[in-house]
């Protein structure tokens, strides 16, 4: 994979905060090559950044992929939930492997620390939400250790500056998709998600809290399992950090994490961008490795 010609060709659809952060990460990857960065306006900040990095760009949205389907093998969709519903059918017909970074709930939910390998067989993989990527692995661990989890709640706070237009218009989808992810991976049917935007200057880091109600908490066992899960997440999200290890407060389990970004597009406070694009990159690289293996076999 040292040979750059053997990298998997990807297209990024959506030139907002998430798409642009993703672009910087793709450019750093040994397995991925950005064949096309796609938006709707060549003058948007994301587009300007892509042009300055010498990446091929287009302002024709999904049309450019329809016109030249061979331009890429994998498409990242970083537009919005509503658009992805439209894009999903088109990309499916074109036979593209799609990683959806919007809270559309169209594809199979992927949490790299839990189900990375399984996702590669799907055609449309959804990386849930930033809060989902931060909390679901922990909710999963809580569900693995306790068989009687009656309720899980996750609260994320992100810096206002890091929430672009699509994030803001998709708050309802964010909540409902995060809740579905929690239910799916923890096995607990009763879940709630809350998202806060905090405008403080200097910007706050992304922070996520998980509350869980269980009849009999196994705190020691939970602490160890959470520690190992955190290490697993740190392999693909380096800025992920446990700030309050599992404690009991007011008859509920409380766990808190902070996510610092790598500062790829927005500064390091935007851990929310970082964690979702890191998850998308983890899936894409795994797919690239599997594809290359298949080709060379």
């Amino acid at each position, binding site marked *: 994979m040292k040979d750059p010609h053997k990298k998997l060709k990807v297209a990024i659809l959506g030139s907002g905060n998430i798409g642009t952060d993703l672009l910087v990460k793709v450019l750093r990857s040994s397995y991925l090559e950005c064949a096309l960065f796609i938006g709707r306006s060549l003058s948007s900040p994301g587009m300007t950044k892509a042009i300055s990095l010498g990446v091929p760009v287009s302002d024709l949205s999904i049309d450019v992929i329809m016109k030249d389907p061979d331009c890429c093998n994998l498409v990242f969709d970083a537009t919005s939930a509503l658009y992805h519903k439209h894009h999903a059918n088109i990309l499916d017909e074109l036979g593209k492997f799609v990683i959806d970074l919007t809270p559309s709930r169209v594809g199979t939910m992927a949490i790299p620390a839990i189900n990375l390998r399984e996702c590669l067989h799907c055609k449309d993989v959804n990386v849930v939400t930033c809060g989902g990527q931060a909390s679901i692995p922990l909710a999963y661990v809580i569900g693995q250790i306790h068989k009687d989890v009656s309720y899980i709640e996750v609260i994320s*706070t992100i810096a206002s500056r890091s929430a672009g237009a699509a994030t803001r218009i998709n708050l*309802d989808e964010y909540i*409902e998709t995060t809740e579905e992810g929690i239910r799916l991976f923890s096995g607990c049917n009763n879940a709630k998600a*809350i998202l806060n935007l905090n*405008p403080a200057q200097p910007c*706050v880091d992304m922070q996520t809290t998980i509350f869980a109600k269980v009849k009999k908490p196994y705190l020691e066992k939970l602490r160890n399992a959470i520690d190992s899960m955190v290490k697993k997440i740190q392999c693909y999200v380096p800025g992920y950090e446990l700030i309050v290890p599992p404690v009991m407060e007011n008859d509920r389990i409380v766990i*808190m994490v902070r996510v610092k970004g790598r500062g790829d597009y927005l500064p390091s406070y935007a851990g929310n961008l970082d964690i979702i694009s890191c998850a998308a990159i983890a899936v894409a690289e795994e797919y690239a490795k599997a594809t290359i293996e298949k080709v060379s076999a």
Partner: protein
Amino acid sequence: MAKILINDVTLRDGSHAVCHQLTKKQIAVYAKAAERAGIPVVEVGHGNGLGASSLQIGESLLPDMEMLKTARESLVNSKLGVLIIPGIATINKDLRKAFEVGVDVVRVASHCTEADITERHISYVRERGKEVYGVLMMSHMATTEILVEECHKLKAYGAEGVVLMDSAGAYLPGDVMERISTLVANLKIPVGFHAHNNLGMAIANSIAATEAGATILDGSMRGFGAGAGNAQLEVLCAVLGKMGYQTGIDLYKVLDAGEIAEQELVQITPAPKGISIVSGLSGVFSGFSKHVDRIAKEYNVDPRDILFELGRRKVVAGQEDIIIEVAVNLWRKNEH
């Protein structure tokens, strides 16, 4: 003299004062009293509005729809109102159902700098032909210029009026006067004010708001609300009457409703006590006070230290979880 629209938040903000444990009977009895007094809008629900029953903010005794149905049955001329904060509640899960129950007025709220998250929710209400207002919470955290910009957004999305909430009870009358008069001069739609009494300024600030041109005021009986409570509604009606403003509310009956609220709902009449005063000084959301009190005891730290630290970190409504983090950090510092 101008007519003032009174929005009664006794059964919504008051929920904070009793950890969201209002019963069906309490809601029914109070809604009837408010109806008799001719109060125009009765807002009902969890302290943070629709869908806010949670471990983060506090679990409600009753589901939202049961609270709303109960109030609906008692209200004829008074309108039934709800508060919704995007990021906590959604259209599908919450707002749609509230309309099925027969809600008349919706107030869509965001932190004071984040009005653009209210667009879909305001439009949704507007499309259904119901009354909708935009609310900016914790408004002391933004400059007047930013508040004007954010209110323009609310107006553009379809809000019929805008309300500034002094969620931390941090304002002094001069602050209110300056902000409200600027909004009134710039907006051409009704402007409202929601007071908290952390610094003992709730009535004074509400009056400053009307003198500056506000035509919507929030209040609650006996001040029944988060932290040090809201502007006391009976007093507000009396003072507005004395100043010659019209509220359409019957004085004797609103005073009677105050008695009923005291007997039926109010366990402890809200007053600015230590924690609430510090919450006002540090600019921290009034609804945090009960959580801060509990968590400070659990970790054996001074609740006032927690509040000043929360203020320094500029936490917003909905960030109750940070209280635990701050308490844990203070506790660790004290231990070592």
